[in-house]
Each structure stands twice: as structure tokens, then as C-alpha cells.
């Protein structure tokens, strides 16, 4: 009995969840939307997704190898970035641009700022915006079934506020149902609202994300669009705005990115509200029909400020203030 036992400060037990299991759950949750993208855009989409995934993993591996850091490709976080970036690209994107975006996401946005947990904006979205600015034409040309076509959101925006939503969509050979299922032009991951919702449900069930950001984001955005969208209280218009573009993908998968969203509960609510308003402003008054990516990376920059003003009052202090 004289052998020495391990000693450490309490607690002595740990939950089973780890960074790896969380990231793996995110990958699983992204799969339905990826599969929908592959189903709609076929081979092209598959190639883009594979390219960004492999390129992100390789970039992370090579960088960490060169810098003699611990190799972290096994924690799935680079794979999440790769998949998200691929989902944010149009299927017709040249693969070398996809590779460039991946390198930018992992090297510049993530690793140069200190690696996992240190980046101040979402790597996939940072890369998307970088590519948007550098290759605007290629990033905004969308094809469906080999025919180049504008996204339903762009069509709606160009038609103006006086046109009926249903008519505009029908004239362009699509419908709300197509928008919901994903049979529309757009980036690979945001095409099918249904697939995104399935993935989001998985994230909620596994408790990877909480309600605050998505609910506040989508809620405030809806209110904004009904008030300022120019279509009045038109439910069809709202549904089209919700299903079209990157809103759902952004709200469930990118705005909720742990690293670049506030850590406090109230902070998450404020963050969601900011996102909703900004996305609305960009979509209604901006030059493009889209606005989710810019809204999210802009709000990413606000996170430290939001956290500062939403520091929770510790237990036992709230009441004290009331009685005073």
C-alpha cells in the first residue's frame, strides 16, 4: 500500500464531450446540406467540396508541420471550415480558386491569428468574402442544370417591390417549393432549406448550438423584411427571403460558430439581433441580393464589444440592485 497515487486538484471527472466530438457532430450536421448540393449540382459540387476539404486539411497540416506545432487536423475543425467554404461557393467555381480560398481561410484567417479558438472571424466566411472581392464575376455566376441563371433572390430584387412574388418566381421557372427543396441556383450549401433544417435539428438535439443566435437572427430579420422589404405583410415574400440565399445556412451554421460568436447568453441575443438588422439592410438597400456573409463577419468584429456590455451579473447580485 505504499505506492503513490495520482494527485490533482478537483474536479476529478470529465464529461465525454470533447472538441473532436463537437466538431464531428458539426460535420455530420453539414452532410444533409452537402448531399442536397451534390444532388442538385452533381459532379461539380462534389469536386468543389472535396477540393476545399482536402485543401483546408492540408494547409493546416503543412503549416503546423512547418511551424513545429502540434498537428490538430484530427480535431475535425479544419474539415468543418473546408466543408463550410465549399458550401459557400458556386458549383461552377474553378477549383484553383477553391484551393486559394481554402488556403486563405486556414492560413490567414485561422492560423496566423493563433489557430483554433483565436480567429476573430469565421474562416470560411472570411475566405468567401476574400474571393467575392477578388473574383466577383466567378463568385456570382450561378448555373442550374448547365444553364446559367440568376438566383431567386436576385430575380426578386430586380423585379422590384410592386411585382407579385409568386408571379416573378413562376416567370423565372421556379417556385417556393423549389426554393425550399433546393432545386434552384445558388451556392452549393445554401440551395436546400430543407437539408439545412435537418442538419440544424441535429445540432439542436445534440445540444451543439443553442436557440439564441438562430432564433434572434431569423426573427429580427423577418420583422425587418416585413417592415422595410417593400412588400408589406406578404408571407410569400418572407418565405422566399428566408429560403433563398445564405440566411438559413448562415443562421444555423456560421453565425453560431463558437469561436466568433459571443460566449454570454445575452451577448448571443444581441448578436442575433444585430445580424438580423444588418442582413436586412444589406438585402434591401445593398447592391447585391445577398448580405448574410458580410453581416456575419461584420458582427464577428463586434463580439468583444458585445461581450463587454453583456457580462452577466453574478448570482446573488441581481436582487440586491432591485431592492435599492
Amino acid at each position, binding site marked *: 500500500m505504499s505506492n503513490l497515487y495520482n*494527485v490533482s486538484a478537483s474536479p476529478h471527472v470529465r464529461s465525454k464531450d470533447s472538441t473532436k466530438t463537437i466538431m464531428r457532430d458539426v460535420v455530420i450536421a453539414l452532410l444533409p446540406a452537402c448531399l442536397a448540393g451534390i444532388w442538385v449540382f452533381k459532379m461539380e459540387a462534389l469536386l468543389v467540396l472535396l477540393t476545399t476539404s482536402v485543401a483546408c486539411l492540408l494547409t493546416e497540416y503543412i503549416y503546423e508541420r512547418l511551424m513545429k506545432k502540434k498537428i490538430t487536423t484530427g480535431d475535425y475543425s479544419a474539415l468543418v471550415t473546408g466543408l463550410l467554404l465549399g458550401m459557400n461557393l458556386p458549383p461552377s467555381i474553378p477549383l484553383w480558386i477553391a484551393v486559394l480560398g481554402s488556403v486563405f481561410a486556414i492560413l490567414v484567417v485561422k492560423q496566423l491569428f493563433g489557430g483554433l479558438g483565436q480567429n476573430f472571424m469565421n474562416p470560411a466566411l472570411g475566405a468567401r468574402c476574400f474571393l467575392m472581392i477578388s473574383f466577383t464575376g466567378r463568385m456570382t455566376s450561378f448555373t442550374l442544370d448547365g444553364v446559367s441563371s440568376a438566383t431567386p433572390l436576385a430575380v426578386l430584387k430586380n423585379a422590384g417591390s410592386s411585382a407579385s412574388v409568386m408571379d416573378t418566381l413562376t416567370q423565372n421557372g421556379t417556385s417556393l417549393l423549389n426554393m425550399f427543396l433546393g432545386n434552384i441556383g445558388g451556392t452549393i450549401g445554401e440551395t436546400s432549406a430543407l437539408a439545412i433544417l435537418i442538419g440544424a435539428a441535429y445540432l439542436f438535439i445534440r445540444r451543439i448550438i443553442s436557440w439564441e443566435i438562430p432564433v434572434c437572427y431569423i426573427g429580427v430579420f423577418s420583422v425587418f423584411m416585413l417592415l422595410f422589404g417593400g412588400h408589406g405583410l406578404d408571407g410569400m415574400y418572407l418565405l422566399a427571403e428566408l429560403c433563398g440565399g445564405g440566411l438559413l445556412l448562415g443562421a444555423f451554421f456560421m453565425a453560431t460558430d463558437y469561436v466568433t460568436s459571443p*460566449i454570454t447568453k445575452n451577448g448571443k441575443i444581441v448578436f442575433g439581433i444585430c445580424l438580423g438588422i444588418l442582413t436586412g439592410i444589406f438585402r434591401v438597400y445593398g447592391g447585391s441580393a445577398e448580405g448574410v456573409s458580410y453581416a456575419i463577419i461584420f458582427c464577428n468584429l463586434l463580439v468583444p464589444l458585445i461581450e463587454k456590455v453583456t*457580462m452577466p451579473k453574478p448570482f446573488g447580485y441581481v436582487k440586491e440592485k432591485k431592492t435599492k
Partner: protein
Amino acid sequence: MKGATFKGGTHPFEGKDLSKDLPVKKIVPTGEMVYPVSQHIGAPAQPIVKPGDHVLVGQTIAEAGGFVSTDICSSVSGTVKKIEKRLTVSGAMVDSIIIENDKEYTKIEGFGEKREYRSLSKEEIRECIKKAGIVGMGGAGFPTHVKLAPKDDNAIDYVLVNGAECEPYLTSDYRMMLECPEEIIGGLKVILSLFPNAKGYICIEDNKPEAIKVLEQQVLKEERISVKVLKTKYPQGAERTLIYAATGRMINSKMLPADAGCVVNNIDTVISVYKAVCQNIPLIRRIVTVTGEGANHPQNFEVPTGMSYKEVLEQAGGCNEKTVKIISGGPMMGMALYDIDVPVMKTSSALLCLTKDEVAEQEPTACIRCGRCVSVCPSKLVPQMMLSYAEKFDNEGFVKINGMECYECGSCTYVCPAKRRLTQSFKQTRRSVMDSRRKQ
């Protein structure tokens, strides 16, 4: 049964099945007995015996060394061998009275004599409790007679008996609730007699339905006492969360439960009060759960204080060779022992043999800011930011974001997916802040 609760908290693996159905067994020490003079919060007790003195069971061997301090009584009869520094659970060397057990267990006069608490004045009751050396047996070890003497007895609205036992693996309080509910009620009645306006609540987590049933049966005839069912969640048994769940009142680190009109006592403390006041038996024994995957025969024991953990474990059938870590207390807040030849004290509650050291197995990785630490913190703190201050040794920043409100429950560290050692860092920083405050 939907229990009252608090916001935050977590659900660690319970592990109570190992020992929850095993009745409490008495255990008899054979070796020498060690009584550290610091078994409570506050000033150490002053020894009043010398080497060579003969002592009896229940005899006072050290007296309170200040206002916040308490007496210590011998649990065996025998001869005082020496007074020297000995290793204790916390790893510190503490002055201890060592008694050679004569194994006759001769009791001091009046030991076990029945007494009617109603015939005693409040002061006499408090003196009884002090003489019996009773301290908070939930772990903190705050002298009970001090706790039971708030500024204004009439301002106490609730006397809470803490039967939450939210620490995984521990079943000692549970067994006591099943085996001697009368003594719990008796002790609570003694305490209630001190506070004329107070209601008594026995607070039990809803994972102990049998205990709830037994005690509800017992309180049927009691006007001032009821059973409060709490949701099973860690750290439900922490003083602040317990008060909130049971009464809706909140206290912070700068307040005492009495400031919210509450007095909180652990199950075993209440039983000790009953024994001290009504039976004239001082606090000389402790219920200890020997458990964990490494224990050959998990069991609940009634252990005389001063007995070595080593002997307790030997009598319990030892632990298997897979045991890598032995903890005094529960896995969330207990102390790891590198040497188990340390005495059982008034605040001991369990000897836990773990076959897996989950802390050593998992290296901390980068924080991904998932926010789980924030959502589980019962004190509504932001552990993620506290850690970044603690790691920079920035005590000022740590205090500014309310780091001193932390009571080291370990919930944040339990849930952290990056396996970061939050509580461990907080402990260090909090000690360092307290030390520098003391110096000023």
C-alpha cells in the same frame, strides 16, 4: 415529481448505485488514532491533554481556540501518545493529537444520557453543540454553534437541511435519511427551537425517491417541517444554489445564509446536533462511503473520527490494482490523496477509488469558446474569461469579472470539451487574491 432548482449546473455520471443500497456498517479501529486540531474553518483548537494522559470515549481533548472554532473529542479510550504534526487530507501537516487506542471503549461519564431539549435554554443548546465539536459536515466544516447564533434569531425564516448530496458516488447522507430519519427530525426540531419564526425544510434531490418517501412519512405529524424535493443536478447541494432552489432567495459570496433569513445544515450535522443535545454524544463518528470502481467492496461505514483512511480501506476489503487515484470526498470537489494514511476527520464523507484518472488522461487543448462553462456556472460567471486572467496571473482582472464569486464547484471544468483546467487555475488565483487581501 418536479423538483425546485437553480439555473446552470450539470449532470455528471452519478455512480451512486455502487453503494446506495448497502446499509451503514460500524467499523472498529485497531491502530493509533490521529486528531488534527484543525478540522474546521477558523482558529485551530487548543489541545488540553498532554502525552501520557488517559482519555475516554467522548472526552474533550482540545478546546475551541477562538470564536470561530470548536472543540474536539476523542472517539476511543486510551493514552495520549504525543502531539505532533501529521499529514492531513489537504496535504498540509497539521498539529495532531495521537492517541493509542486501548480498545476498551470506556465511555466518559454521562455519555449517551438522554436529555430533553425543551428544558434547555438557547444558550445551553448552543453550548452543547460547541462542546460536542459539531461542524458543518457537508465539507466546509464551519462550526455549527456559530452558524446557529445569527444576530437575530427572529429574523431566520428557514432552517434548511441539506440532503441534496449532489456529489457523484456519495451515498452516506442518503443512507442516513433511510436509516435514521427520526434523528434527522429530532435534530431539526432542536435547531428550530432556537428560531421561533423559522420553517424547517428537508431538501432532497429527486433521484432519492425512497428517502423522500421515508422523510415525508416522518414529517406528517410535524407542523413546522416539510420535505422539499429538488431537481437532481450538480451542484444542487451547494449552499447558495440550495437556498435559491428551496426559498427563491439569493446570496452572494459576501453574504451569509442568515442574511437571507436561512440557516443551512447538512444531514449528518443535524443528526450530530440531535445526538449532542438529546443524547449527550459528541461528534466522534462520521459516515463514510467507501466506493468507486476501484473499491473491492463498496460500502457505507460509520467510522470513528481519527481513524486512518488506510485502515478504513483495509477493513473495507481494499482496492484493486487498477486504482490510480484515491479521493477523499466526491469526484467534483474532493481531494486527491497521494498517501491514504491520513485520518478521517469531521468533514470526511467518502473514500473514492477511481480506476481512471480522467484529468491526467486528457491534455488540455485550445479553448473553442463554446460557452458551456458559462451556461453551467451556478454563480453566473464567465469562466472562460476568468481563466484567461488567471493564466496571465492578472489578479485584478480576475476580481473585476467577479472571479471571487466562484466557489470552485468544478462544473465548468467538468463540461469543458477542450479539457481545460479551469477550476484548478481558479483555486490558485483565488488563494493568491485572498492572501494578498489578508496582507493588506
